[in-house]
């Protein structure tokens, strides 16, 4: 069987790649994709712990379903905001969305 460590390390690697994408990119849609990757890495952890630690109740899988629901709601709203930003500023570059900067 697959050792639990390997699953957790794969999830950590995906989370770190998502973190890098969020921090290093300027385009709003790319930043959003990084957030999706991070949420998926967390879901891998939920599913792994559901299978290894709690196989009778699979609470982790239920939690992963709720994480997916929240992630989808977030994508819908974020894309609407990006569309609005593009109409106002003709760009999806996050560095130019600085009108609330002090």
């Amino acid at each position, binding site marked *: *069987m*697959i*050792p*639990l*460590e*390997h*699953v*957790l390390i*794969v999830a*950590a*690697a*995906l989370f*770190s*790649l*998502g*973190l*890098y*994408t969020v*921090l*290093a*990119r*300027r*385009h709003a*849609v*790319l930043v959003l*994709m*990084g957030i*999706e*990757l991070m949420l*998926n890495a967390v*879901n*891998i952890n939920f*599913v792994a712990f559901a*299978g*290894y*630690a709690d*196989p009778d*109740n*699979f609470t982790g*899988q*239920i939690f*992963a*379903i709720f994480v*997916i*629901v929240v992630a*989808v*709601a*977030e*994508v*819908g*709203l974020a*894309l*609407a*905001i990006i*569309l*609005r930003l*593009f109409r106002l500023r003709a*760009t*999806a*570059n996050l560095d130019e969305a600085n009108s609330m900067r002090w």
Partner: protein
Amino acid sequence: MTGIDLAFYVLAGFSIAGGLGLAVTRSVVHGALFLILALMGVGGVFFTLLADFLALVQVLLYAGGVTILMLFAMMLTQVREQPEATNNPQRPWAALASLAFFGAVTATIVVTPWPRNLPEGAQHVEFVDIAGTLFTRWAVPFEIASLLLLVALIGAIIVAREATE
């Protein structure tokens, strides 16, 4: 090593390759395609971890829905291939931060004692069990999640529509 183990490592490799592609590509559209690869890989990993329902949801909702939505958003915002729009001067710091995070988490995972294997007789979770649990024990969070989706739907329409006056 059984076939399921091999499948896990291959699919995990696919998803990490997709994540790497997303992290380094210069084109936003290629980023979306790499994201599809990564999300399909994650769906396969769910299947090898005995979560059939989540694997299907992942393929239908993420690889099918979310990434198509993102490609639509790119089409509507007329994304151009500009390197300066995809990369940031804080790139080295971002790489340092994510590598440090990965190192810290991996060290923690390695030194923590875990149960070595799946418990004996672990079975794939049946759809019917998930539905039964979701509508009895988790009924209130389920209703709240549906309310959240409704609010997000209405909010997205209001934010995205043209001003009428």
